[in-house]
């Protein structure tokens, strides 16, 4: 997956990494928080927590107010409104499991709905899909068919001895149990080894590439490292819409960066850091060494970024502000 030799285990580094995380949260040990007495930190919660008011308020590429993290009143699931893309994501996620475990798909839409119907948490979404107007549902079916074809074409049948598994939950309690880092890995493969990195993790995403996908897979790598005491050798994101695979070879630098980001987000979630609302910067941005965004009027800047072509995005609202990121700065 990465084309490099599997790195050897480094127990001292993993111990230091654990100590770094623990030290960063040592003042919250024993605090009563949420989730049955502990704060559960997931990649989605981190993303929401770490989006400073300005970073979060305007979509980087479209210039539109970015309210995707804040669902409307109707048809919500985990705070998200039901949308066709959300439904597509859930359906393709179910199909991905099927492709990995069975290797075949009969009718993609029916198979995926059959899988989701067994999950109580997905019942509202399944009902929403079944109530879709015929034309929209037909479009959804076509997209699910297309992406299922991509899965079958691009994902090989894995050797059983490589131990492929899906939807693996990984938990790491820290700060005396007051905080739990929790990752749900869509796909993992590789037999664990004491002496070298031997496991690869993959997130399956139906949306367009976004910076938080990179942060999410790095969070997965961090949590897996802290659980198993050996890092995975790679963390990847598979974009089922395009068939692209972004792969990060997991190294010390990546894990330290992920740990720093996790600490910053956990402290926000714990209320130990207040996000600023003045639009200039916030404590999170400072903790992440992230330079503040520059808010300027639209007509004074050219759109930036690979997806900023108005023909592709539908074009930014000309009256909305746009967030321009200083060169070389990741959102």
């Amino acid at each position, binding site marked *: 997956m990465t084309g490099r030799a599997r790195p050897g285990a480094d127990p001292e580094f993993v111990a230091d990494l654990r100590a770094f995380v623990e030290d960063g949260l040592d003042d919250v040990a024993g605090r009563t928080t949420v989730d049955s007495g502990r704060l559960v930190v997931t990649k989605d919660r981190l993303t929401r927590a770490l989006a400073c008011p300005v970073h979060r308020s305007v979509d980087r590429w479209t210039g539109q107010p970015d309210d995707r993290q804040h669902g409307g009143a109707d048809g919500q699931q985990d705070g998200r409104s039901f949308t066709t893309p959300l439904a597509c994501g859930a359906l393709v996620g179910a199909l991905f499991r099927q492709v*990995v*475990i*069975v290797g075949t798909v009969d*009718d993609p839409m029916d198979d995926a709905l059959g899988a989701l119907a067994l999950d109580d948490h997905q019942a509202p979404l399944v009902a929403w899909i079944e109530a879709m107007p015929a034309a929209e549902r037909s479009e959804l079916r076509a997209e699910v068919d297309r992406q299922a074809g991509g899965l079958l074409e691009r994902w090989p049948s894995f*050797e059983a001895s490589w131990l492929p*598994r899906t939807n693996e939950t990984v938990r790491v309690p820290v700060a005396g149990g007051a905080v739990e880092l929790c990752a749900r890995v869509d796909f993992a493969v590789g037999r664990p080894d004491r002496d070298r990195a031997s496991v690869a993790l993959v997130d399956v995403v139906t949306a367009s590439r976004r910076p938080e996908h990179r942060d999410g897979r790095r969070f997965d790598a961090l949590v897996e490292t802290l*659980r*198993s*005491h050996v890092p995975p050798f790679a963390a990847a994101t598979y974009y089922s819409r395009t068939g692209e695979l972004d792969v990060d070879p997991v190294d010390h630098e990546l894990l330290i960066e992920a740990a720093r980001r996790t600490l910053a987000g956990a402290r926000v979630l714990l209320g130990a850091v207040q996000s600023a609302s003045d639009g200039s910067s916030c404590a999170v941005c400072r903790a992440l060494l992230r330079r503040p965004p520059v808010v300027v009027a639209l007509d004074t800047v050219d759109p930036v970024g690979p997806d900023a072509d108005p023909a592709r995005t539908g074009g930014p609202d000309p009256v909305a502000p746009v967030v321009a990121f200083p060169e070389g700065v990741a959102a």
Partner: protein
Amino acid sequence: MTRFEGNPGTALLAKVSALVPPEALDRVRDRLAAGLDDAAAGLDAGAHLEIGLPQLRRARYRSELLGLPDEPFAWKPVFVRRSLGIASLRACADGRFRGPAEAVGPVADQAVEDWRRTGWRTFHWEPWYAGLGAGGRAAVLAEAATWATPVWSALDWSAVAPVAELGRPDDRWPVACVAGVHLRGRFEARVAVTGPGGTPGGASALFSVAGGRPGDGWHDELAFLAMVAGLASSSRVLPARVVGLWPEAGALRVAEIDVAALTGAVDRVVDTVAVTVDAAVVPVSTGA
């Protein structure tokens, strides 16, 4: 994928240094009777209170859930994953498959075929599984494979398989002094280990797999399994050790069974009954 700190196989197969004498079970019964006399005093006549690991954990860590009514039982992948996962582990240990992902499908198909041929439901879920479409069946198989894979990779099966009994029926013991209260012990494997005299197979150890992460009461929970196994055994032999695995957290815990461990388990049962009765909730076994 989980690599545990410590070796589960080594912990499971280690030689036992001492065994608790069967007489200790008499003291366990007496202590249970004394404790439950008060704790279960508010239990309605005719009620059926089953105490197993789920009840022990709910009462200690999630007592707010005790007041909620049980949902009507319906099969879900999560209810199938353990039994199908264990059967798949057995098939892998027999050398028929190279890993759980390869085993779950054929093992489930065989179970359905056996049910159709004989009418006998080994796992109970066969008719439900057979009625699912391709997507539903795949979801069940994926869930079972994900459950079984860390267990498969955690143990050296060439050493464990010859001395292990996988997926035996649950241990059940009715508390004689308190009508309606039953103890139920469920573990994933019983393994013959070398006893104090160096006798191969002179003692046994239990192997338990749990979701989530170990709570602060993990030792009592593992000892509970040994206690119920001893109480339910006609030979009155107590397992010498219980090894617990929490794959999601990569956690391995070992409880050596002695009198103190049994006392902790008894006290935990008494506390659980008291909290449950106080919440006026009487869980009823679903048979799932």
